[in-house]
C-alpha cells in the first residue's frame, strides 16, 4: 500500500511534466493535441542518441552520479534533447498545425494531431526498431526504506521526483514573477486583450511549444529511466496525460501538476484492488469521475 503510494508519486512526477505542456497548448491553441505524448517519445529517443554520442566523444563523462544509474553524459543528453524536442514542437506547429489552423476549423486540428501521432510513433519505430531500449544496462539496486512492510525505492526514482519538482518550481517562478510569465497567462486567459496590451501572439505560441516540448522531453527521459524507452510509450502515456489535464482543469498549470500526481497515485493504488491488466483503464475512470462531479477540473474555469 505505502509502496504503491510511493510508486504513484514517482509516476506522477513524469505525468505532471507531460501534462503541463499539454494543458498550455490545449488552452492557448484550443485543441486536444493527441500528438503531445509523442513528444515524450521523441525526447526519450533524442536523449538516447545523444547519450551514446556524448559518451563516445568524451568517455570520461560516462561516470555515474553517486548512487544513480544516470551519467553526466545522459545529463548533457537530456539538456540537448530538451532543446531539440522544443524546437521539433515549434517545427511541427509551423509545418502542420499552423496550416491546418489557418485552413480548417478548430476540430480539424484534433484529427491532424492524431495523424501526426501515428507518423511520429511509427517513424520512431522504423528508425530505432520496436524493441525496448534502456539508458543503462546495469541493474540499479533499490534502497530498502523499510522491511516490514517492505518498501523499496531506487535512487533514480528519487532523482526523477526531485528534478521534476525542481523544474515545476522554476516554471512556477517564471509564471508568477516575470512579465514573460504574465504574458503567457494573459494569452491563456484572453488572447486579443493580451495583444492590445503589447503581447506578440505568434511569439507566445512559439514559446508555449518550446516550453511544452522541452518539459515533454524531460518527462520522456524520466519515463525511460523508470521503465524503458519504447516506440509505443506515447500511445500508453497519452490517456494518463490527458486525464491529468482534465482532473486539474484544462489550462491550469498547477492543475496539471496536481492532476499528474493524482493520476499516477490512483493508477498505482488501483493495483491493490484490481489486477494489473486493468491499469490502462484507470485514467478513463478518473476522467469519468471528474466529469460527473466537477466537470471543469480542480482549478479549471468554464470556458466555451
Amino acid at each position, binding site marked *: 500500500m505505502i509502496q504503491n503510494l510511493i510508486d504513484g508519486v514517482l509516476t506522477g512526477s513524469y505525468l505532471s511534466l507531460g501534462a503541463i505542456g499539454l494543458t498550455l497548448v490545449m488552452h492557448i491553441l484550443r485543441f486536444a493535441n493527441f500528438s503531445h505524448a509523442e513528444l515524450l517519445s521523441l525526447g526519450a529517443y533524442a536523449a538516447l542518441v545523444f547519450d551514446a554520442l556524448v559518451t563516445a566523444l568524451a568517455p570520461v563523462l560516462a561516470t555515474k552520479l553517486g548512487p544513480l544509474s544516470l551519467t553526466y553524459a545522459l545529463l548533457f543528453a537530456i539538456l540537448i534533447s530538451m532543446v531539440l524536442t522544443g524546437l521539433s514542437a515549434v517545427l511541427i506547429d509551423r509545418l502542420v498545425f499552423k496550416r491546418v489552423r489557418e485552413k480548417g476549423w478548430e476540430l480539424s486540428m484534433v484529427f491532424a494531431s492524431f495523424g501526426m501521432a501515428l507518423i511520429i510513433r511509427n517513424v520512431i519505430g522504423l528508425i530505432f526498431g520496436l524493441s525496448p531500449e534502456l539508458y543503462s544496462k546495469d541493474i540499479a539496486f533499490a534502497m530498502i526504506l523499510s522491511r516490514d512492510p517492505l518498501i523499496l525505492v531506487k535512487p533514480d526514482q528519487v532523482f526523477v521526483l526531485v528534478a521534476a519538482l525542481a523544474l515545476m518550481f522554476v516554471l512556477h517562478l517564471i509564471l508568477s514573477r516575470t512579465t514573460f510569465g504574465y504574458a503567457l*497567462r494573459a494569452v491563456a486567459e484572453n488572447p486579443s486583450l493580451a*495583444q492590445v496590451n503589447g503581447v506578440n501572439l505568434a511569439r507566445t505560441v512559439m514559446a508555449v511549444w518550446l516550453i511544452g516540448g522541452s518539459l515533454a522531453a524531460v518527462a520522456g527521459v524520466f519515463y525511460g529511466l523508470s521503465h524503458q524507452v519504447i516506440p509505443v510509450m506515447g500511445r500508453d502515456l497519452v490517456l494518463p496525460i490527458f486525464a491529468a489535464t482534465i482532473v486539474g482543469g484544462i489550462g491550469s498549470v498547477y492543475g496539471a501538476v496536481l492532476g499528474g500526481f493524482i493520476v499516477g497515485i490512483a493508477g498505482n493504488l488501483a493495483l491493490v484492488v484490481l489486477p494489473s491488466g486493468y491499469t490502462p483503464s484507470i485514467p478513463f475512470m478518473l476522467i469519468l469521475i471528474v466529469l460527473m462531479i466537477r466537470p471543469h477540473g480542480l482549478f479549471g474555469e468554464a470556458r466555451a
Partner: protein
Amino acid sequence: MPDPVLQVSDVTAGYVPDLPILHGVSLTAERGRITLIIGPNGAGKSTLIKAIAGLIPVSAGRLTLDGQDVTHIRPDQLAAYGIAYVPQTDNIFRSLTIRQNLDLALRRAGGDAAARRNQLLTQFPALADKQHDRAGTLSGGQRQFLAIAMALARAPRLILMDEPSAGLSPKATAEVLEHARKLTADGVSILLVEQNVSQAMKLADHCYILAEGRNQVDGPAAELIGNKVVGEIYLGGRRMGAA
C-alpha cells in the same frame, strides 16, 4: 488649428471577409480632445474601434496615426505605436493580480517600469490598496480604472474606449468619464464609444453618429445636443435595433 492624431478614411471592415459591418466609415480624432462615437445598436461602433485597434481586418480604406499609415499593423505593434484600447468587457486579466496586470502592460514600455507602475498606483489609490489581489476580485468601477491604468501605462497618444460606463452605477460612470476628461488635459486623445449619450455628449468635444455601418452626422458635441436629426437617427435606429 486642427491637429489630427488619428484619421480613419473610408474604412470597410468586418469579422468575416465577405460580410462587412463597416461600409466606408471616415472620422478624425483631434489631439487632446474627446471624440465621441454614438449610434444605435448594431451601428458598428465596437467594430470600428476594434478595427482601429487592429483586432479586425480592414478590407478597404486607410488608418493613419500622426500621418503614418497603420492600416494593416498587428495589435501588439499598434500598442507600441501609442494606440491603447480599453474593451467594453473582459478588459483586465482576472487571473493576474492588479500589480501583474500593470507590469504586463508596462512590459514593452521601456524606462523604469517599477517607477512607472508606482506612479500609476498613486494615480489610482483604490487600486494601490489591492495591488496584490487578483484583478478578478475587483468591482466593476475598479476594473474600469485598472483597464484605464493599463491603457495609460505605455503613455499612449490615443486611447480607444468602448463603453466604459457599461454595467457601472451612475456614480461610477461619472467618475470614469471625469477621469477621461482629466486625461485630455495632459495631451492624451480619446476616442470614446458610449451608449450613455446625454452624459457623454456633455463631456465630448466632437461627436460622430454612425448607423448601419455608415457615417450619418458629425459636428461639435455641444451643437449636436438637442439636434432633431440626431434624435431621429438615434431613436429610429434604436427602434430598429429592438425589432
